[in-house]
């Protein structure tokens, strides 16, 4: 009962606080509108469809060469222009000079691809095509090893568009700018809950009310649980409002499986609350507030809340920074589910978030029990 009372008080205070309303509701909604309309072009599906220029050095022989030639013919129908490598050329340098978008080296043992940073979308597409082809080729090679007779049919080029279909380009839906930002910014405010969570304990100490709470016949665990619950409820409510608003007013697309979307967001909210709480206990002073907002802003930035980062190199600094951002995990998981119907990543994300949250909550509960006062 005390838990509910404290949780209710926490909600009341949050909704009376103009900062909460501004940061958790007004800010994301306005930003959504601004970024969604301003960057509409960057997301339009036609812009990326320039011819993709690929420099090919074919060192393969036999079946592999035959297979690749078929693939090449198919691809030229879908807007790819292949140019043969001439001796004396430096493939990587050509790509660097932007004479070509990609440089592919085909050998019997595999395909090497040098992509261009300039045209990430084009490189992505080429990479997708080639890996689709490589999969197919491997399958055919396996068949060939087992039953050479069937290998020939397997090497037949796929029907037109067969490779391209693997990508989302041909699917009905591709995230528009508003759709993208609706997801990204909602995830962002879910994580921003960490900032209010960091304040849960500090604000009581600052206002002196910590003394009253501790002096009251309420167990510390109840105070802790009530505060966590209240904070979760507030943040989840904000997330719900933002989703509803973006859906109804901005017509953002949230996919068919809304409950699962909400579950992902709930896991982010739980994670952010635990994160904020744990950090505020660890750092004790008011410095924690600053540090948490910094961390959250960085996570928002690298997670692609303000502008999409596209595909980044896994091992680059940016890649590592991005992969550390819970916003990015959730973003990718949600986009995969909404647009590709692929929910494996969703379950992983929920599990990861819940696990981290459990650890952080346990840690903060432990630190709280060790402390004098709140």
């Amino acid at each position: 009962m005390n838990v509910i009372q404290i949780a209710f008080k926490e909600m009341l205070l949050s909704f009376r606080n103009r900062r909460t309303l501004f940061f958790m509701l007004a800010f994301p909604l306005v930003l959504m509108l601004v970024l969604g309309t301003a960057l509409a072009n960057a997301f339009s599906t036609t812009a990326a469809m320039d011819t993709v220029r690929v420099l090919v050095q074919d060192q393969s022989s036999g079946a592999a060469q035959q297979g690749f030639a078929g693939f090449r013919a198919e691809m030229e129908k879908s807007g790819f222009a292949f140019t043969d490598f001439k001796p004396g050329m430096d493939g990587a340098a050509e790509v660097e000079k932007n004479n070509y978008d990609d440089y592919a080296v085909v050998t019997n043992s595999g395909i090497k691809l040098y992509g261009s940073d300039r045209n990430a979308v084009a490189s992505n597409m080429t990479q997708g095509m080639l890996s689709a082809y490589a999969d197919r080729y491997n399958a055919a090679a396996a068949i060939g090893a087992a039953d050479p007779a069937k290998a020939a049919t397997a090497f037949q080029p796929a029907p037109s568009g067969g490779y391209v279909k693997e990508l989302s380009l041909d699917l009905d839906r591709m995230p528009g700018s508003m759709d993208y930002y609706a997801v990204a910014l909602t995830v962002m405010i879910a994580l921003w809950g960490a900032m209010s969570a960091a304040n849960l304990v500090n604000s009581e100490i600052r206002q002196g009310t910590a003394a009253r709470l501790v002096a009251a016949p309420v167990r510390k665990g109840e105070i802790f649980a009530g505060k966590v619950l209240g904070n979760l409820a507030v943040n989840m409510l904000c997330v719900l409002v933002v989703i509803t608003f973006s859906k109804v007013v901005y017509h953002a697309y949230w996919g068919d499986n809304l409950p699962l979307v909400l579950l992902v967001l709930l896991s982010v909210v739980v994670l952010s609350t635990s994160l904020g709480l744990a950090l505020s206990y660890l750092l004790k002073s008011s410095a924690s507030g600053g540090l948490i907002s910094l961390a959250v802003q960085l996570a928002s930035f690298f997670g692609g809340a303000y502008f999409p980062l596209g595909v980044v190199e896994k091992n680059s600094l940016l890649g590592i920074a991005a992969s550390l951002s819970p916003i990015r995990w959730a973003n990718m998981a949600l986009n995969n589910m909404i647009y590709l119907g692929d929910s494996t990543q969703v379950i992983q994300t929920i599990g990861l978030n819940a696990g981290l949250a459990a650890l952080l909550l346990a840690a903060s509960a432990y630190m709280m029990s060790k402390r004098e006062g709140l």
Partner: protein
Amino acid sequence: MQLWTMGNKLLALAFIMASAYFADVTAAHSSLLMLLALLYIALSMSVRLLGPINAKTGAIGAVVLFLLAASAYGSPLFVLLLPFSACELAFLHGRRRAMLQAGSLLPLLFLRDGLLAGYIFVAVAAWFHYLLYSAQLMKAIGFEEELDRLRMKQERLARRLSDGQELQRSSEYTHKLEERNRLSQEIHDGVGHSMTGALIQMEAAKRLLARDPERAGQLLDNAIGISKGAIEEIRLTLHRLKPPTEQLGMSRLREKVESFGMSSGLQAGVSGSGDLESIGPLYWKIIQDNVTESLTNVLKYSGATAVHVEVSVLKRYIKAVVTDNGRGKDKIVKGLGLKGMEERAASVGGTVVADGSRGFSVTTLLPYGDKPAQ
């Protein structure tokens, strides 16, 4: 109990995850397992957070149901975690231990060979730990009670000690009475007899004065001799009884402080106010010891150039203050010296206050006379 079970649970969980992983490595399944494991951790945590015994029981019930569901739909290995929940229940409801023990054997009926051995092992280990822990807990409670008993005993002894001090004071009084008694006895035995003898001789001389002046003169000479002896005896007695004045009181204190000033090179002064005569020897002893101790400290730590000792007799308190003009100290750490002074003062119900705000001062406050009613 909680730490024990938590450790056990984590070990078992790790074992389950590991064996599940090696048995079946499809991605979807392992992420489901991960989710279940994390949910289990979260649920177990919630048991810790809940307060009342009924809520705890309910939560453990939920964990049991969850485990049953998880072993049905996730991995049968989850059944291995059941005995821990049974132990937790047993810990909450000690009396139904046997029933719970039997209950935790129930799943044996449904288990296959491989799991059967594992389950028996886990169940036995869990119950073994539980019994061990319960035994230790009983022991700890026993110690607690023992401690309480000892504490009470100590209190009783302390009271007896203070009674003893009361006794000491009253015996001091008896001692004084005895002293007086001895004094009067001595006067009676020695001087009294001599004077009686002299008186008789003088009486006889008076009668003989007219008849036999020569004899009378002889008698008078005798009387004079006896009287002289008696006076000498009185002087001796008094000398024997009288304590040397310089050993007591203000003059002795002054002498001490002055000699301290000489040897240390500090400016040292003494002043007194109020009815110094009324300070009893016991009190002088305390004052002198504390002043000496304080002076030593002044020399050791203060860096002062002057020190002043003031003894004042208030209406119901005696106050002795040693003040220096040294560097003082903001937060005073009590050393052995201060503690010794406190103990001396406490023997007559007084206190010692050290203050380092302006130079350093040590005030000894001793209540005396009719104390204010408590």
